[in-house]
């Protein structure tokens, strides 16, 4: 995350890394998953390890291509994403456990 804000005199937008949790993504955002943990930052009924495994089993794995396809009406939640070729719906709270390097800026 720090790179994105390290505005040095040699700042070049092409080098900028837009790395954010999937929870903070909007419709049309694409990128590559860089990190999957079980810590969504919210109180979950399942242990972090379990959440991590569930995300992995649905295809949320480091290196997978991801694109936000749709958002719900209320609070833009849940979201529908494409993970490689699979379409998956999930809530933003769980999407907090997936970190994505988004394309461009």
């Amino acid at each position, binding site marked *: 995350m720090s790179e994105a804000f390290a505005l040095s005199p040699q700042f070049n937008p092409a080098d900028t890394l837009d790395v954010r949790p999937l929870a903070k993504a909007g419709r049309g955002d694409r990128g590559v998953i860089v990190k999957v943990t079980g810590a969504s930052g919210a109180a979950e*009924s399942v242990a972090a390890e379990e959440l991590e495994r569930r995300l992995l089993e*649905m295809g949320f794995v480091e290196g997978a291509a991801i694109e936000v396809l749709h958002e719900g009406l*209320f609070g833009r939640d849940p979201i529908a994403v494409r993970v490689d070729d699979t379409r998956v719906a999930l*809530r933003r709270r769980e999407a907090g456990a997936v970190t994505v390097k988004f394309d461009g800026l």
Partner: protein
Amino acid sequence: MALDTSLSQDPGAAVSDAAAEPALVALVGNPNSGKTALFNALTGSRQKVANYAGVTVERKEGVLTTPSGRQMRVLDLPGTYSLRARSPDEVVTRDAVIGKLEGELAPQVLICVADATNLRLVLRLALELKQVGRPFVLALNMYDIAQRQGLRIDLERLSRELGAPIVTTVATRKRGLPELLEKVEGLVAARKVETENVWHEPAAGEIRAAHAEAQRIFKACVKPPERPDTVTGKIDDVLLHPVAGVLILMTLLFVMFQAVFTWATPVMDGIDGAFAAIAGWTSAHLPAGLVTSFISDGLIAGVGSVLVFLPQILILFFFILLLEDSGYMARAAFLMDKIMGGAGLHGRAFIPLLSSFACAIPGIMSTRVIDNKEDRLTTILVAPLMTCSARIPVYTLIIGAFIPKQTVWGVLSLQGLVMFGLYAGGIVSALLVSFVIRRVFWRGAVEPFMMELPTYRWPEPRNVLMNLWTRARIFMSRAGRIILPLMVLVWVLSTFPYPPEGATGPAIDYSFAGRIGNFIAPVMAPIGFNWQMTVALIPGFAAREVAVAALGTVYAVGGDGDAAATTLGSLLSHQWSLASALSFLAWYVFAPQCAATLGVVKRETNGWTWPTVMFVYMTSLAYLASFVTYHVAVAMGAG
């Protein structure tokens, strides 16, 4: 098209085996892989549906005869993404696959069913099956769609990588089935010694490694489609649109309800009439007496009261199956998740609650789609608050008798508004109750919502009809087994003992039902119920709409049908105060006035705890609501 890994096939073994016990084959696969369609195509109508021993997971088994004449038993295991089981359904799949399911034989061969257009996730499942060491065949289903998309799959290489034969199938057109069975027979006949089961529940790191392996195999064997599916994306742009999507869902639900209530009415009237006629014929032609009364009022009326809801349930299930098979149901759960989630319900609770508008019994039975135990129990507990169709006769009677035929604001009928209010009351209270349950009893336990949005497909009529038939059979056998004995019990309670010689009141006053009613009448007096109302509640326990007939009995209104209902209505409007009538309506919104529902809850939760909780909370709510309604109405001068 079929490929084989080098397996020694001994024709002699196959012959001697054919005479032996039929081999057991189990279907495993991701949800939406067409597994059930393949099961239907393989076994046709030769299916049995029951429960697995000790758990409320549906067990579907079928029998088939292979082209070579061998009998096989096929088990359709619940769909899963991994053997790491999370729901009771998935536990069954895991235990069956590793051969440790209590009361079940270990399957000799597994058929891993895969959607050929969506291989990535199933490859990881196939790798897990490889670890288990039980011989399996990979069925690449929906292969026609893969071909249409120009998807190239190197079957030989894939078969080698997985160490399993591969067959391409199109279950809905019965393509590839003989080849599939041939491979399965080959594996059975080969008696391939199972390699040691090295499967264990994978940790996160191992899932990552399996993914990497699956990814490697995928890249090596599958060339991306030349004409990828773009239709699903386009449809989703409309159906998942934040505003339009919700409006379309609401329209769809509205059409569904219209269909459930309007299409079913003539059939229901027909069934009702037929059973009344049969009961009438029996009473007329059999010698009057106890046995005749038992047959016509107990048994025939009992069977009729189960059957009468079948048309509605079939129409409802028909829509649900269409929505499921087309891939829309997952979208509906997506659209409803926030609203349901606000009340502490899971997005998937949407389907069971929807079914409960016809009848809470199929609704509660369909809560099995919810993985998490607390989520499932919450849904079960609030399902009976949805206004089921058995309440309609009661509502119609009371509204017709007490609510004037007025027009409000020029267009709306007051009677219709009251009816709408009763429905809305049920929905709002269900959301409130689940909110309270999740805040007070199971705090903070929010289950992750993660769901694949499958590719849209045209539902296959044959498949829909077969599944509808299965649903209908399950409903008839389960509901029948619970409702029928209850009807008989209620008949006994309202028939015995007989009134004494020279009694003047209606016979039911002297029966057990009458006595129970009179006994609890003082308790019901504060909510404005007279003893007749209380007595009518007892038979109403068998099924809500029976209360109408019971009121007819206590007020000694003879006859049947519309004329009797009108007579009863005008009688009630003289006998009851408006406050009492409103209180009765409020009671019916909340009261657990249906023993069959409690029976189904007992069955689904394996014990009396939850039916008891349901009975207590619903009765308390009903009493409270009636109390408030009655006293507010009296205060406003309607006493």
